[in-house]
């Protein structure tokens, strides 16, 4: 059994252990392993997603360990605090020793200690101590020297990089400084987002607080005057720009553009361009009635709002609007070919008795690379998931009212022609279609063929296609994008971090300290001369904290040259 320690001794020994190198290694490894968890497990997601992903049991285990917001848990913070204590302890232990060692440079070395030097050469020289010392000093520009004479022995000590231990001190205190800076930021700073629609203003930010959402009111308002997106020729976004005005106590104090990487600074708060989205654009739907009446009505609403048809119960919820929709139109494996498909609105469509669907309806018809009008189209997703969108060509170019008219005329003639006939073979059906289409053309454009549009054959194809598609749709009407007045919102990130400069200061200490530590090794040399009758007994001894490979070469070269300089005289 170990002997009982007195309490102060116990504390002392714990304190000593805290500063030990082995603990440092363990701490660094444990911290890095712990950090891995938070990168594998997505942090700060919706709780429902976690529940679904892990099942109730693991969800609760993970949740009670705080793994969904791991870097802010008490145990992770505790580890960082422990690191700080450990650093403080090792600094406490080592700094006084190091400072003392850096200040006093012992020049004398007892003969016994000299024998243990790894770098040591002894030889006989003809010169006296003063001459030897002078010659060595001349060989070592930039070194510091001290000479001492003791018991008839002349000692010369040379130092280079004497302040190397400052590297250690800087590096280890830098970690403390950085962690303190982080702590200040976490406790006295904030960081959150606000979404400001064009033309509106806002003074509240929201942020996630573990599993909750927190809010904070700023001492000023931010107004978004306008928001722009600029695109590359490839259609990828090039720049997001918000024109903001700060309103403090009712007064407009500052108006400025911000872009990503160029924030705005006001009253200690930085305002960043973080995201953007639709700020409630005004959407006018054209409702194409599918009951054969050929009616087109209009309904106006906003993004995030909706419209309901009182008669049929058809219900539209508008979820998003985009003025540009750049898509790669190339076949897989072919060089990319980006094309803007124009404005589109996304909405959820509900109709009693049918599954709700998600639709992205484009304003313009699709023109293929050869320039042919392929008619209007929508994207349809039965799951509500964007990944499941399937393009549905509608056949008709709905922006052209004449085609809509033609389609209905065709339908009428076709059903007239089909009346009474039971069975048709393919050829008969085609003939009937052709006849019905001719009749429809005559009805819409008149009998004079010269006045028919040039691409009427394509129109025929599209009309035939539309018969299949449009009559297959289950809803009483098809809402297409008619018109829009666009409003963006700009997504801003507001942050204040009073600890940030502390962190930068610590970072500078860290980098400077590392450079001193690694690139300014402390090299020590001793020239020990014992003068005797025929000349001198000389010893050259060396010591280095780092990079012995280079030092040993340096040391041997120095010795050879230093000795050789002497050789001609001694012979």
């Amino acid at each position, binding site marked *: 059994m170990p002997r009982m320690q007195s309490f102060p001794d116990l504390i002392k020994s714990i304190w000593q252990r805290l500063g030990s*190198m*082995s603990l*440092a*290694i363990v701490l*660094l*490894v444990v*911290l*890095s392993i712990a*950090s*891995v968890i*938070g*990168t594998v497990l*997505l*942090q700060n997601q919706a709780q429902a997603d976690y529940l679904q992903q892990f099942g109730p049991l693991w969800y609760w285990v993970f949740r009670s360990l705080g793994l969904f917001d791991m*870097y802010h848990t008490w145990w992770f913070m505790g580890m960082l605090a422990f690191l700080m204590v450990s650093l403080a302890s090792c600094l406490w232990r080592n700094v006084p020793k190091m400072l003392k060692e850096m200040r006093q440079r012992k020049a004398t070395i007892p003969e016994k200690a000299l024998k243990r030097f790894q770098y040591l050469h002894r030889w006989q020289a003809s010169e006296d101590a003063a001459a030897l010392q002078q010659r060595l000093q001349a060989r070592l*520009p*930039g070194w510091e020297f001290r000479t001492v004479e003791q018991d008839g022995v002349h000692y010369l000590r040379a130092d280079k990089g004497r302040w190397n231990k400052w590297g250690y001190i800087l590096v280890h205190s830098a970690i403390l400084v950085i962690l303190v800076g*982080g702590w200040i930021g976490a406790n006295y700073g904030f*960081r959150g987002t606000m979404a400001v629609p064009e033309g509106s203003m806002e003074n509240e930010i929201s942020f996630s607080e573990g599993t909750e959402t927190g809010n904070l009111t700023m001492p000023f308002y931010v107004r978004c005057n306008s928001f722009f997106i600029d695109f590359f*020729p*490839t259609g*990828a*976004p*090039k*720049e*997001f720009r918000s024109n903001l005005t700060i309103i403090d106590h009712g007064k407009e104090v500052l108006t400025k553009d911000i872009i*990503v*990487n160029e*924030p705005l600074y006001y009253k200690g708060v*930085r305002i*960043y361009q*973080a995201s953007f989205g639709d700020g409630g654009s005004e959407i006018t739907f054209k409702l194409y009635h599918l009951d054969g009446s050929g009616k087109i009505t209009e309904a106006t609403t906003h993004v995030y709002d909706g419209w309901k048809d009182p008669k049929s119960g058809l219900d539209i919820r508008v979820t998003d609007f985009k003025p540009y929709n750049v898509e790669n139109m190339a076949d897989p494996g072919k*060089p*990319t*070919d980006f094309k803007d498909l124009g404005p589109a609105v996304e909405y959820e469509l509900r109709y009693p008795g049918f599954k709700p669907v998600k639709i992205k309806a484009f304003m313009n018809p699709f023109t293929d690379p050869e320039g042919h009008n392929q008619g209007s189209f929508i994207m349809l997703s039965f799951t509500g*998931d*964007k*990944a499941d969108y399937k393009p549905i060509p509608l056949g008709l170019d709905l922006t052209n009212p004449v085609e809509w008219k033609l389609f209905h005329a065709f339908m009428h003639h076709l059903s007239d022609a089909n009346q009474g006939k039971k069975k048709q073979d393919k050829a008969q059906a085609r003939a009937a279609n052709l006849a019905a289409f001719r009749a429809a053309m005559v009805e819409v454009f008149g009998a004079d063929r010269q006045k028919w549009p040039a691409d009427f054959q394509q129109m025929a194809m599209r009309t035939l296609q539309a018969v299949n598609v449009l009559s297959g749709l289950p809803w009483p009407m098809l809402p297409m994008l008619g018109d829009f007045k666009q409003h963006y919102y700009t997504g801003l*990130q*507001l*942050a204040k*971090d009073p600890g*940030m400069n502390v*962190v*930068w200061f610590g*970072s500078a200490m*860290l*980098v400077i300290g*590392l*450079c001193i530590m*690694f690139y300014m090794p402390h090299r020590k040399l001793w020239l020990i001369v014992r003068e005797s009758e025929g000349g001198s007994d000389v010893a050259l001894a060396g010591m280095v904290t780092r*990079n*012995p*490979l*280079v030092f040993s*070469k*340096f040391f041997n*070269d*120095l010795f050879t*040259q230093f000795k050789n300089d002497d050789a001609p005289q001694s012979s």
Partner: protein
Amino acid sequence: MTTMTNSNVSSTLYRGRWVWMRFNAYLGAALGIAAMAIYGANGYEENAFLYQILSMKGVLWGGSGALTGCAFAAVASAIKPNLLDAKMARNITPWLDGFILMVILAAIWARFEPAQEAISYDDQSNLFAGRVIMAMNVTFIFSAVAYIAYLFAPETFIGRVATATAYIGVYLGGSALLLRWHESYLFDMNIGHAPVSNLYEVFILLFCITAAVYLALEKRYQAKAMGAFVMTLVSAGVFFGIWLDSVGQGEIKPLVPALQSYWMKIHVPMNFVGYGSFAVACGAGMAYLVRHRLEAKGSNSKMLAIFPTLEQLDLLAYKAVAIGFPAFTLATILGAAWAAEAWGGYWSWDPKETWALIVWLVYGAYLHARVSHGWHGKALAWWAVAGFLVTVFCFLGVNMYLSGLHSYGRLS
């Protein structure tokens, strides 16, 4: 150290006044360009920075910087003559000279570009940088083969060929990247950006830095046998790069707004100095393990004669980490500074950041393990190898796996 280079014939360029002046001129020119970016009127345009540097304005700012540097160097060395022996100038100047050579090479390659009408964003296969990169790929693979051959047939000639091809590979890769920077402007001035924006480009950067760090160590410590390991790592990377290119990742694409920042130009290369050095440390660790094994088996293979000793290999690994660790630290700090400017917080625990921290902690622990007792060569060699695996995950795995989950796996 003064005494070390006497035997070197070409050393006049790298001694005394010459190197000291040149070092300060380079430094002055770099500071001049930085000053232009910060203080010059329209001194920094994201879309045209390369041509700003090459324009009259850039030449003026950079040139005045270089002259100021020379003047400073002359005055300083007159006051303190032993500055002429400054180790830093002597160690860093060759790298800067090499960079100038790369610029010249890139300028030569630029003459072989197809005519403007033949250049199209949609089909980038006729651009010349692609060919230079292919040459680099071949050269690096050849170099790796030569280094391996050298292990089994330690002829001086084979060793020379191995080293020479490694050098050629570095220059080809570096100049190809510079050329790519120029090419990115050929499609459209708006698209142009520094060639450190996607995985393919930084991979080339990584090969060059890894090989360059290795070559610097080889030159200083005569550690040729290590090359077989380092260059094999590089070659593995080369094959990955070829694959990336074959799936269309090698194309020049415009920069997303978040990356349009001068921080990218310093943060990314600095990071890869860290990664490259860690790759070299890994090579040294592998060489250590191989030699350890040979020795344990009592082998008297010819290889042992050219291998550095275990102690040397241990120190080489350490030396590489000593280059990489401060660089990686600085790079992480620069990344934090960029994040602070772009996103409003210097640290958000996103997977990339966190993995950078993990890498940093792993090598920090390595450094402590070296100083502390109880950890010896073999364990540390394993640590150097494992540390590089963590590094690879940090710059590849996170992009492919973790942030992949982040950006595509979630549906809204």
